[in-house]
């Protein structure tokens, strides 16, 4: 019988080593693979026989990771690449070329926003950004040359929950697929294909890998979108491809044509492959995904409850942002799509406009001993950043407000430590922030704790 999710996190895609019987996934750190004979060599090049030829295109270790993630997502297959950004790029360039158009949520990770807003237009691909909660905006942004909808399952920075059933329905009404970035949710919290998404990208660097040690990305195909039914929209999949003997990918594979082209062209020509060593490290993380995500969700709830209690008791907290909070605009959607939890990234704002908020943010961060001050999420260790003094420090208060960030906004990525230690750390930070008042200068303190935490 088919295996359950937790079993697949440990076993899917991995065949015990036939030579030595190694139980762990071997790391095949080899650029290329010896052919048995000339017939096999020619057949592998012409896709008459399956197998590995050259590690830019495929590799046994990397393929095991790909299968595992595809199994966990309920997809038909996956491609591992060098980063989450490489996965997003590969998805887009596999589907379209110059003259195409994307409709995307405006609540995106900054790197993704930059790719769509500034970089891809240089190559003739334009994007219209919409409020992800405004379904009419998605619909009205569609143009005749629209080829993709794109959003994050949990958006940045407001933790918007993408209404995948509704947005995918609009996409499909217009003959385009929905691609979602599922980095913050992972398949343990949400399996987007079950709700209507067609393609998934992950920054595996975050919760999938889970230990802050390796950069990687994954592109997963649900196999549900019928490219042939919209053949005029997707000639990369439905028309002969001169770059591979006039292959028509949608005829070669009824359900995995997208992956076939992405590998045969995208990895071959753009070359953003994942190292087998990185694939191994990511698999190590995935093996404990269910255990880690459950603990992330549990600790996040403890932190949310703590922040709410402190706010009610008079701590200088003006706002707590997380989809599990009843006042979050997407609380109902989160209850529908994310019953196990809405992730462990939390943002909250320390009260105070302009300089007071910024000073309180700095004081809070500098008082922390356990949370590490750095620009990442999804580590096993708890992380914190103060956007107004770091990632967004050049922005005016007005620009920050437009991005949903207050001067005192703090972003937490709640890790796996003992929750009591995390709450004690946050209490330290709140106490320090509470001592800052208008015109005061924060007392000199120890350097930020990132390196030591």
């Amino acid at each position, binding site marked *: *019988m*088919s*295996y359950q999710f937790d079993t*697949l996190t440990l*076993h*899917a*895609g*991995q*065949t015990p080593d036939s030579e030595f019987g190694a139980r762990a996934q071997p790391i095949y750190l080899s650029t290329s693979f010896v052919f048995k004979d000339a017939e096999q060599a020619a*057949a592998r090049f*012409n*896709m*008459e*026989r*399956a*197998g*590995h030829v050259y590690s830019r*295109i*495929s*590799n046994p270790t*990397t*393929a*095991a990771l*790909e*299968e*595992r993630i*595809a*199994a966990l997502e*309920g*997809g*038909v*297959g*996956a*491609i*591992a690449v060098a980063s989450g950004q490489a996965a997003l790029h590969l998805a887009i360039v596999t589907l379209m070329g110059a003259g195409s158009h994307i409709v995307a949520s405006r609540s995106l990770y900054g790197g993704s926003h930059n790719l769509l807003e500034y970089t891809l237009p240089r190559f003739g691909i334009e994007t219209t950004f919409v409020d992800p909660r405004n379904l009419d905006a998605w619909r009205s942004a569609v143009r005749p040359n629209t080829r993709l909808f794109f959003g994050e399952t949990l958006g940045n920075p407001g933790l918007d929950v993408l209404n995948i059933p509704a947005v995918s329905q609009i996409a499909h009404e217009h003959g385009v697929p929905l691609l979602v970035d599922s980095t913050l949710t992972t398949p343990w919290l949400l399996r987007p294909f079950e709700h209507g998404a067609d393609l998934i990208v992950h920054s595996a660097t975050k919760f999938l890998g889970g230990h802050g040690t390796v950069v990687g990305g994954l592109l997963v195909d*649900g*196999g*549900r979108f*019928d490219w*042939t039914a919209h053949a005029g929209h997707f000639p990369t999949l439905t028309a002969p491809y001169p770059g591979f*003997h006039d*292959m028509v990918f949608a*005829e*070669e*594979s*009824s*359900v*995995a044509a997208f*992956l076939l082209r992405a*590998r045969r062209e995208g990895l071959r020509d753009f070359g953003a492959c994942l190292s087998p060593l990185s694939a191994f490290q990511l698999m190590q993380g995935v093996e404990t995904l269910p255990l880690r995500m459950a603990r992330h969700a549990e600790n996040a709830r403890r932190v949310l409850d703590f922040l709410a209690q402190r706010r009610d008791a008079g701590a200088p907290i003006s706002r707590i942002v997380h989809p599990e909070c009843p006042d979050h605009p997407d609380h109902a959607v989160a209850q529908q799509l994310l019953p196990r939890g809405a992730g462990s990234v939390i943002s909250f704002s320390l009260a105070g406009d302009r300089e007071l908020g910024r000073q309180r943010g700095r004081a809070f961060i500098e008082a922390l001993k356990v949370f590490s001050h750095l620009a990442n999420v999804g580590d096993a260790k708890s992380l914190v950043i103060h956007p107004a003094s770091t990632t967004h420090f050049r922005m005016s208060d007005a620009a920050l407000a437009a991005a949903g960030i207050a001067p005192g906004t703090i972003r937490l990525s709640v890790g796996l430590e003992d929750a009591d230690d995390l709450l004690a750390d946050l209490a330290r930070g709140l106490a320090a922030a509470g001592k800052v008042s208008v015109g005061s200068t924060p007392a000199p303190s120890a350097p930020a704790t990132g390196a030591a935490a």
Partner: protein
Amino acid sequence: MNLLIANQTAYAYTGGVAAVATDADSARPAVVFIHGAGQDHSGWTLQSRWFAHHGFRVLVPDLPGHGRSAGTPLASIEEAADWIVALLDAANIQRAALVGHSMGSLIALDVAARAAPSRVSHLALLGCSVPMPVADGLLAAARDDEATAWQMINDWSHSPRGLLGGNTVPGVWLLGSNRQLMARQRPGVLLAGLDACRRYAPDAAALAQIDAAIHIVAGSADRMTPLRATLALQSLLPTAGLSTIAGAGHSLMAEAPDAVLDSLRGFLLP
């Protein structure tokens, strides 16, 4: 390529080479690969590409109502066998090797035993048994709850090893792709195929008199058409050879594509 059969469009994959549908003078031996219930041509991609690039003329049709072919699924194995003969006519193929998997193997068998024995040079039967019983629970699921039927088929048609993956095609998750391929078919297609398999009861005497060369390929871990049932079939086909692929389940072309290809090469190459 598209062909017109009984006034309906029929799609046939040609192994990745240009189609030569009207080339009646072609000296190349023809091979027709026939898919199983709820499937389409894409299950044969690897093997058919090899033969198409090694001197064979290849046709891999989507049966009526399946994949890219129009119409509704044919109600019986005999009707499907007659349709394969019509396919040969439409493609101007006088004689062909027929390679069938599961339901497709019954269709190939019926062409060789009843519909057009003289037009079959070779008969390769993969995942085959006669009779081919279908569990009542699976039939009921195919009728009332297709998603459950897809799950049951995935569970039963893959070997214990296959249920955990380790695909030779990099990055493709077999259970996911097989489920999605079944989900792509129109409602009722799977039920019609399973019911046709269940009802097929050929004349044993006709089977014994098949003139074509016969080769049976079985997966040792097949739970849909178990090896013991395949051996019983071999006893009905006195001239049939048998090759067993160790560890493979019913989805043997996907689980062991190279072993299947090598077995077919040994049988079909002059």
